[in-house]
């Protein structure tokens, strides 16, 4: 059962809406408050479940990706910094902030969902309340099993890197590849066998159980938080346009 008596499907709706908000948002102001709220809450709760180091690694990968993307594709506007070999224009800052805020919003809200519910309840809740196909619901729930494994893989890879004379952690995008390759390789093989394991145990024939459970106070609080953030985002955007 989910903590605080709310349905995992409520958390899923929350997370999905936040992700949608991230893609609807076209300005820094629109995304700022939901991104900060979800980023802080999600990373705070998620670090206990997944491990702070892995989350920091994800953040750094995002920072580099966002920065390279911004420099290559959005280097327009007034010049803010002239480094000689490259000029950093205002467009870079805006594009960098947009991608980073979206990242914090999507990942943060997902981490909130994963931290406050458990796999079996989430699958059942998604299937029965939202009628989501089993395969989709299962894929989301498998993340509960996968994250601790990824954290362990990351720890073992760090040990091997240290022994091989490499930094356990790196900010250099070229070297990030050497960190990600083993992580993805091990993860891919595991995911393949997990897929086989679930299919030979009847995932695709899963029968759905309908739920008649009403919304609890916890569910209402989630929807209230959701509405408040959506309203704040739109109102901020509107206020800035008007004034």
């Amino acid at each position: 059962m989910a903590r605080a008596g709310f349905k995992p499907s409520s958390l899923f709706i929350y997370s999905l809406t936040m992700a949608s908000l991230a893609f609807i948002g076209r300005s820094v102001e629109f995304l700022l408050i939901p991104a900060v709220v979800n980023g802080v809450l999600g990373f705070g709760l998620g670090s206990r479940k997944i491990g702070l180091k892995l989350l920091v690694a994800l953040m750094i990968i995002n920072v580099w990706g966002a920065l390279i993307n911004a420099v290559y594709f959005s280097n327009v506007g007034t010049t803010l910094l002239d480094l000689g070999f490259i000029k950093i224009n205002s467009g870079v800052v805006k594009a960098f902030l947009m991608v980073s805020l979206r990242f914090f919003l999507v990942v943060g809200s997902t981490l909130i969902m994963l931290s406050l519910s458990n796999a079996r309840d989430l699958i059942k809740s998604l299937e029965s309340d939202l009628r989501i196909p089993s395969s989709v619901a299962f894929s989301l729930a498998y993340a509960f099993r996968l994250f601790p494994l990824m954290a362990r893989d990351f720890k073992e890879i760090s040990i091997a890197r240290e022994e091989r004379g490499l930094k356990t952690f790196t900010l250099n995008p070229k070297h990030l590849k050497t960190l990600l390759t083993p992580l993805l390789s091990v993860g891919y093989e595991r995911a393949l066998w997990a897929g086989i394991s679930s299919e030979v145990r009847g995932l695709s024939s899963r029968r759905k159980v309908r739920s008649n459970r009403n919304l609890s106070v916890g569910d209402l609080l989630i929807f209230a938080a959701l509405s408040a953030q959506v309203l704040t985002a739109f109102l901020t955007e509107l206020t800035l346009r008007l004034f």
Partner: protein
Amino acid sequence: MVLVVLQANVSEAGYVANKAVLHNVEVNVSDGEVVAIAGPSGSGKTTFLLTALGVLNNLLSGWVNGRVRIDDIDPLDPLGFQKIFKVSGVVLQDPEKQLIMPTPIDEVMFILENLGVDVEVASRKSMEYLNMFGLSNKAYEHVENLSGGEKRRLSLAASLVHEPNMVFLDEPTASVDPWGVKEVKNFIRNVKERGKGVLIIEHKVKYFIELIDKLYVINEGSIIKVLSRDDLNDQAVLKEVRELGVDVTPIHEVDRRDVSNARYVGGDVVLEVDGLTCWYDGSSPIFKDVSFEVRSGEVVALVGSNGSGKTTLLKALSGFHRGCSGVIKTKDGVSQSGKLGRSVFYVHQTPDYMFVESSVEKELLQTSRFGGVDLNTLKSMFPWFNELRDLPPYKLSLGQRRWLSTLIAWGFKPRVLLLDEPTAGLDLYLMRQFKELVGLLKRSGTSFLIATHDPRVLVEFADRALVLKGGRLYEDDVFKVALLLESVAGVY
């Protein structure tokens, strides 16, 4: 009346078009019968299992020409494939990859819920099975908190809870200690007594030999021998099978003569451990006052059950387990904050963790640059270098990946290589290939401390055996320890 629960007649099957991996494989299993398929790595054992379950053509985009029936269900047909979970239970080679839910109760209930069993009934039955497999007190813990043996027991419970007529086991001994092997044996005996069919894919057949009614030997995708129960009692027949790379004979029957004068007495002391005690945060010590030494060129086996602290000891020696007290000394000096510099090098049992580059050649180049061993020396020590130099290391066979990861470690010129379960999942042929590598590196003066519960490591290439039991370490005769491990596993 005896009913055939698995009928498989596969004329050809493969992963990519026009490239058959299996040729004319016919396997039948009746109820109450235990059938094994054995053969060297890459012979097609697992491909057959995936074919028989319908996974190859329905999930992996492979193809199958032939006919398969499990209890009148055709798993090759997409609709039949969706029904096979009702009549079959599957235990995959690695519980880490098989277990998909975060807690044991979720894992066991998964198939019952897929069958549409009422949640309360499913919950009650799952607890009953967890209790049967000694896991009821861990029903709500995260799977990651379970030991290797407990994970294996959980995979067995999850495969049987819906009472299938046919149970498939893919190399069930690959990731367990001898105590775990015994549990797998008891499981198979129990399934057989219930009148169900059992198909075991395994190259260490000796563990199950008294339970097997029929043994198929497969090589290069074809069945080359079918042995009956009577054949399995014939030593001459078993010798033939052993020569095909199948481990059918207990150690005491074949290896004693190889052992008597093979032990090497090491040179100078290169690693000295005195009064080492290690613990996890807030827990009582995993082991206490551990003292031993390793001499140059020695292969020392570190033996103990899953969870006895073998890996922790290796990590403590390499400075990656912080919670320790005691003294660790090498020829290069005393441990400073748990670090021994490059005197020791720890190699995890998953070789993939070690790789950082996109090709075999780049891996060796990086090793040469950072480790200092000449690149040509490293190339010459990887026998498949010319044919595999551009291949990503992850695409190599398990034996080759283990070879490469050990070679990389050696390339950093450690005095002692700390290997964690290096022979897990290796068949007799690959194990001997690995032995060849150890021999090669040993001749250069490198010492080895190998955490293992594989009796073959002890008998075939360990010079000494250290046993970690109940938090204490003691030294014992190599052959005696190997026999003990086999007897724990139920091999006599």
